[in-house]
């Protein structure tokens, strides 16, 4: 639920990228378009999990990513009415807050005008926003890794009284049973990739049949060509951020998630990521840094705490901490563009859906985390113990142990949530962060 943010007494020491502001405008435009899609005669699909938007684009549909909508509401502190509607419907406060927010939106959408009768001051407009989300014509579930993600859409299907057709894509968990299993390799990876690819072919046939729209394969190739290029530019930008001091931080990349996650593949998307990359290069060339006076470099593990995005970025900067990278940024969102064959993109798309950062056994996550901690040369790890996201939090203790044992890197945990501010504990983060930074100082002093 919403909580008022305490005023910050200290000056803002962040230096956020200017280019991401344009991304925010593109995203706002996307949502406005979605809210009016029905009026333009478009059919609408609600989906969760991996970025199926290029397929929907080529199928002539408007798309709404459930998690993205929940995240947007939370980032705007507008999640309250949807969560209240969800709670009234019976969803427990310990349930994944993305799903609970989105299911609350579903309840409000089904209830129509009744959604405004919540009795909460100021709730009316906010509820309106959630209910403005056009009702779906289709559900598609594309959740890898987290079982909650798959069940959530099945429940949405029931909230809408089974009147909206649903398609599910199943993703084998990349557990790593066999000795040959590893990141992007082994029989498990190969067979899972083929299996998900085949389901994408089925999905396309299903959408064609249900929507009556002919699937535009050329448009899919074209949009995937743009997305691949945008993803390459994003990777180049991430690579540049390894510089010392960091020219941009994790928080800048968080601001750039929405465009790569669900905006249409087109020239504007490529231009956007080119501008992000170029701004970072420009900063390196001119000695401009992502935060004032970088003293520490940390890795951030966990899904985003959307209610607290701006607050957290300022908080870390205040302590001289450049948050460099994190599982949610570095190992998600078209992060391996070389896998995409733009002439025949389905396999590479399937592989990205499988590469969801909650779809790996801890062994692979361990490999990725240690690799990134070394490459970004970090001093410690901050684990966002995301209260209602068991998928992200399950492996965190093992990852912390491994980072300590293998790299000598300390960690702290703080509690928060994806879309429920009530779980955030400011004192815990503040005291643990200060203690870890002090310990890093001591270690440095001893080494010098």
């Amino acid at each position, binding site marked *: 639920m919403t909580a008022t943010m305490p005023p910050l007494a200290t000056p803002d020491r962040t230096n956020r990228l200017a280019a991401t502001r344009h991304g925010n405008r593109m995203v706002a435009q996307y949502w406005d378009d979605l809210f009016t899609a029905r009026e333009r005669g478009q059919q609408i699909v609600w989906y969760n999990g991996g970025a199926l938007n290029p397929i929907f684009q080529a199928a002539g549909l408007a798309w709404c990513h459930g998690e993205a909508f929940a995240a947007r509401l939370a980032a705007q502190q507008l999640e309250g009415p949807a969560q209240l509607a969800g709670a009234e419907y019976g*969803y*427990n406060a310990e*349930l994944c807050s993305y799903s609970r927010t989105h299911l609350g939106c579903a309840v409000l959408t089904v209830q129509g005008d009744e959604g405004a009768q919540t009795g909460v001051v100021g709730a009316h407009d906010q509820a309106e926003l959630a209910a403005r989300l056009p009702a779906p014509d289709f559900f598609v579930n594309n959740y890898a890794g987290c079982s909650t993600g798959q069940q959530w859409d099945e429940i949405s299907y029931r909230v809408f009284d089974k009147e909206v057709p*649903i398609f*599910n894509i199943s993703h084998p968990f990349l557990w790593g049973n066999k000795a040959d299993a590893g990141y992007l390799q082994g029989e498990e990876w190969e067979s899972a990739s083929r299996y998900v690819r085949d389901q994408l072919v089925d999905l396309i046939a299903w959408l064609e049949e249900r929507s009556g729209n002919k699937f535009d394969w050329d448009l899919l190739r074209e949009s995937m060509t743009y997305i691949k290029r945008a993803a390459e530019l994003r990777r180049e930008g991430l690579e540049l951020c390894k510089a010392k001091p960091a020219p941009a931080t994790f928080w800048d990349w968080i601001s750039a998630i929405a465009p790569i996650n669900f905006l249409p593949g087109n020239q504007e998307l490529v231009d956007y990521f080119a501008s992000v990359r170029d701004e970072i290069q420009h900063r390196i060339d001119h000695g401009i840094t992502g935060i004032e006076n970088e003293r520490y470099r940390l890795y951030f593990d966990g899904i985003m705490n959307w209610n607290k995005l701006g607050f957290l970025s300022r908080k870390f900067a205040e302590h001289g901490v450049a948050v460099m990278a994190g599982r949610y940024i570095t190992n998600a969102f078209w992060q391996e563009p070389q896998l995409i064959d733009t002439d025949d993109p389905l396999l590479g798309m399937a592989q990205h859906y499988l590469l969801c950062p909650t779809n790996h*056994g801890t062994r692979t996550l361990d490999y990725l985390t240690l690799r990134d901690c070394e490459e970004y040369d970090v001093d410690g790890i901050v684990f966002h113990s995301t209260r209602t996201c068991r998928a992200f939090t*399950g492996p965190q*203790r093992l990852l912390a142990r491994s980072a300590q044992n293998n790299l000598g890197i300390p960690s702290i945990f703080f509690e928060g949530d994806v879309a429920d501010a009530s779980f955030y504990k400011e004192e815990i983060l503040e005291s643990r962060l200060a203690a870890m930074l002090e310990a890093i100082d001591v270690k440095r002093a001893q080494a010098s």
Partner: protein
Amino acid sequence: MDRPDTADAADPLAALRSIARDPRSYVQRWREEHPDRKVLGVLPMNFPRELAHAAGVLPVIVPDDQQPVTEGRAFLPEFYCGFTRNLADQAATGRFDLYDGLFVADHCIQLLGATDIVRELEPRAPVFLGQLISSLSDRGAGAKIAEMVATLRAEVEAFAGTEVTDAALAASIRAFNRDRSLIRRLFDARAAGDCAFGPVELQDIVASAQVMDPDEHHALLSAVVAGRAPRTRDDRIRVHLSGHLCHAPRRELLEVIEEAGAVVVDDDLWTGRRYLQTDLDESLPPMTAVAEWYAGRNVALPCPTRVQHDVDWDQWLLAAAERSGAEAVVHLMPKFCEPHMLYYPELRRALEAAGIPQLLIETEHEGIPLESFRTRLEALIERSHRNRPAYA
């Protein structure tokens, strides 16, 4: 160990009870009696134990051993369900040494989290995830299930160091079917009005079946059944217990329900009907029977960890209440169990529409607020009484 020993024969129910409550001693005894055979831990709720049994292995559905979570705290967050935290704790404190390996066919993300802890902390024990497809409406789900059942068989063979023949598998299927159907007889009798067995006794019977060799369990249970006469239920409020996935609710909870003036007439608990509702079809080739068993389980008793568009737990629950004459439903939801949390509003909605009073109890792994439960239960019973016709 095909027949009970003399002490067991004297009080077979006590023998089952003690195994349900102390599975470790049973497994140790089995090991002593079968020194060259292996014990495989399997996680709930869908692993086909027949495959492992046919390889001469003792497949034990790893129970929550109801110990407080201590060192396991360092490995899984406190907002994981009690069962998975207990598993992590078993691994962290060496209590997982009971098993030579761990096989998992389910995909609940919390279960996988705990499985990864076991894999990390018990490197001596092979851990295998053979994920049975959870979305049963998918086109091609049947083929995927058959493929995974074959994989599980091959992996079990590798684990046991022996081949699973079709004949051995067919024999194991018969053994488990026989045991399950005997237990089911008791549950069906209860739903039909017999209250010879109380809810704690039935839970002990099922929990011991989840650990034991099926022939041995069947022998003991047969003796129990032979010694117990049917008893017609009285006019206490008839309650259906719902949920509690993956592990047993605390016995004290079940006791309070009956103390408060209700009688449990049916359930869909994991340590209840959910475990025993589905048999394997003995007329089919055994591998096909295993695959069809898995595909059919969710229809026979829907599970919120599966997704299947035309199968509804809520509708099943209404039909079950109709069959047993249940007048109220108590939802037992383990704290943090997301599959149950997601489905609960659908159950609530359906029961409300049918006018069946209900009560949601969130169970904690450690500590039960028994008195508050008793008060809420009494209120439920009172409400249910008001639903009864004035002159029945």
